[in-house]
């Protein structure tokens, strides 16, 4: 091994010697490739590497720690703040280089990491340079432990990374309110040769069928790449649309651009699929495109009389999520997905139930809930059809649980439902009979009868 290295060094020396003898390059020459150096952080910042913390994060959460390292002189130390730290709510940063690197000869980003306690890093990866992030890769919920372990984040398609400047990034918040420290060392791009069996997916591998309308745009979400690693583990990462080649079965009905955004053009059916690195991605989106879409009635109540969760007509409170996942029974896909000429609409498919968490909202001065619903499928409603709407107040602790929550639901029976047109409902709080408090409203939940699996929602607000 040593001999081989010496031999390589000698070869390199000879090559350098030859290079020095050549005539200088003309100014017209455009370099086809960038440096292929795969080192990110070994014992310190590699040449040209920068540290840029995220806005709102604890700016000094990152330091170079000369006392702790897996190998060599130093490691990256990240101090995740406690909940409520005035210096910042979380630790998060990108590490871009001044000039791009050609990483196409590698198949993974690898690093060693350990923490002061077993923890789960929310997001960690590469391809984030505070720019276009065209080839962003994110490993979510990376479990780390108190001893040094090597982690592998595969490159979804190395051939794309001929000019990448986002070499490393992470984002991690407190765990159960508590901060902690983790260390990362020997961060580098490697050609492992054991990153294999690619299984890309769109829509998280689901075959989704959706009724929709002409002239709308729908982003393809749930983009992942999965590789089997040498240790036998299937490692799945979120991959930016830039890694995929999207296809439509019917360009007269729907087009899809390189960002994975679908635009519907005419009535008909189109199936959207994708490839990654020549491998067919699991999952597809079948769009049954109907005619032009009629938007929900524009709300007319004065803003002063409204607290809005979701409406283009008002300023909305913060929404935590449009499709909180409740294991293991929830099937619902979708969320704040639909955008028709700037009008945002929540769109759900495979609906059984779904929750939107917001606020918290003090609606004590309000008298009712407004919501606009639209059933886009041409299904036959019967006596058993319904949509339930539930409101949850999180109580004085403002979080779910704690014994102070109140919940109440009402039923929209079949005679209040119609397909193919907006259903505008105003529900007085007095109908939510069990909702004894409404000063910390945090969740609205929709549940549908079997067979009623697609629902559009708009203009969710409380009024007086």
């Amino acid at each position, binding site marked *: 091994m040593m001999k081989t290295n010496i*031999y390589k060094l000698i070869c390199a020396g000879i090559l350098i010697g030859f290079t020095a003898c050549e005539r200088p390059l003309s100014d017209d020459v455009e370099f086809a490739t960038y440096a292929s150096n795969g080192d990110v952080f070994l014992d310190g910042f590699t040449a040209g590497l920068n540290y840029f913390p995220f806005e709102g994060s604890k700016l000094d959460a990152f330091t170079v720690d000369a006392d702790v390292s897996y190998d060599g002189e130093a490691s990256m130390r990240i101090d995740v703040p406690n909940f409520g730290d005035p210096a910042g709510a979380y630790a998060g940063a990108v590490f871009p280089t001044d000039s791009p690197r050609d990483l196409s000869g590698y198949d993974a980003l690898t690093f060693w990491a350990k923490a002061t306690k077993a923890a789960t890093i929310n997001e960690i990866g590469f391809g984030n340079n505070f720019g276009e992030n065209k080839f962003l890769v994110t490993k979510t919920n990376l479990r780390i432990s108190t001893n040094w372990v090597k982690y592998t984040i595969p490159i979804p398609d190395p051939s794309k990374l001929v000019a990448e400047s986002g070499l490393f990034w992470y984002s991690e918040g407190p765990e159960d309110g508590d901060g902690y420290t983790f260390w990362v060392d020997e961060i580098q791009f490697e*050609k*492992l*040769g*054991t990153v*294999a*069996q690619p*299984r890309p997916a769109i829509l998280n591998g689901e075959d989704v069928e959706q009724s929709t309308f002409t002239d709308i745009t729908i982003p393809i979400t749930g983009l992942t790449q999965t590789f089997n690693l040498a240790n*036998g583990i299937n490692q799945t990462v979120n991959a930016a649309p830039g890694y995929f080649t999207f296809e439509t079965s019917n360009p007269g009905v729907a087009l899809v651009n390189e960002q994975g955004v679908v635009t519907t053009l005419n009535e008909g059916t189109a199936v959207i699929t994708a490839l990654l690195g020549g491998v067919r991605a699991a999952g597809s989106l079948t769009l049954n495109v109907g005619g032009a879409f009629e938007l929900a009635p524009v709300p007319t109540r004065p803003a002063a009389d409204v607290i809005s969760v979701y409406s283009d007509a008002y300023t909305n409170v913060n929404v935590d999520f449009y499709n909180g996942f409740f294991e293991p029974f929830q099937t619902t896909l979708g969320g704040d997905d639909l955008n028709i000429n700037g009008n945002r609409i929540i769109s759900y498919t495979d609906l059984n139930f779904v929750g939107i968490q917001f606020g918290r909202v003090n609606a004590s001065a309000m008298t009712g809930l407004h919501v606009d619903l639209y059933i886009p499928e041409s299904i036959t409603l019967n006596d058993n059809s319904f949509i339930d709407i539930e409101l949850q107040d999180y109580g004085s602790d403002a979080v779910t649980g704690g014994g102070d929550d109140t919940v109440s639901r009402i039923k929209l029976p079949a005679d209040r439902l119609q397909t193919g047109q907006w259903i505008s409902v105003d529900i007085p709080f007095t109908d939510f009979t069990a909702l004894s408090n409404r000063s910390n409203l945090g969740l609205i939940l929709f549940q549908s009868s079997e067979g009623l699996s697609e629902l559009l929602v708009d203009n969710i607000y409380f009024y007086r």
Partner: protein
Amino acid sequence: MKNKKRLKRGLRVLAAKLPLLCTLLVLASCSTSEEQTVVTFTDLVLEDNFDVDGAPNAEIWNYNIGTGENGWGNNELQYYTSRSENVNVQNGYLLITARKENYEGSGYTSARLLTKGKFERTYGRYEARIELPYGQGIWPAFWLLGSDIPGEIWPQIGEIDIMEYRGQEPTVVLGTVHGPGYSAGQSVSKRYELENDRFDTGFHIFGIEWGPEYINFYVDDVLYNQITPDDVPGEWVFNHDFYIILNLAVGGSFVGSPNAETVFPQTMLVDYVRVYQSNIPNN
């Protein structure tokens, strides 16, 4: 006996015909040559290149069908069939495919081919070129089992595992012998691990060269182990006829069960199986 071909156990050796200049320079710099000849038997006596589409050549291959006793003695989960879904020749390759399906009371199906009663032989060079499947609980093997001897049962009849592999360890294969006093968990075995490569992304050659009182194990051009009577803590039972088995098991005590992460179907692709007879006198 041509002892110059014998190796120290565990010595890893390079093939003589590696063309790389750099490699040669490194080798040349060694004080004593470590070059070894991987194989010496070249007189072909059996060859199946799987050139005819359809069922494998019935003049060479039999099948084991069903679940055997206690999952072929290993708590294996598959039901072996000879259906084309599980065993088929296509485009020059033998495909043995493990499927997740309910069949005859088992949760998986697969296939096990053997030359019992068709080709049984003592000594020789046995090799196959195979691309392996992958995933937790996937257990392919290319092996030899001792022919039936009246009144004797396994492990007395002997077993030579030319290649065994756990789908959850895609960079590692094992070469093993089983005999009386050294079977199952006490078998004499050695791992061979690929560096910067794995066995499920390309074809690799798995072979043994077996003569009186030695079995050499090789992968591609690397001879990675030799087992001799001195290496086994019991009787040397490798001086009679053996037959060839190619199979793809699912689950069992060697690998554990598949889990939600295991992708099905999984296919073991075999490019060829070849046997060269021993050129050592007195066999």
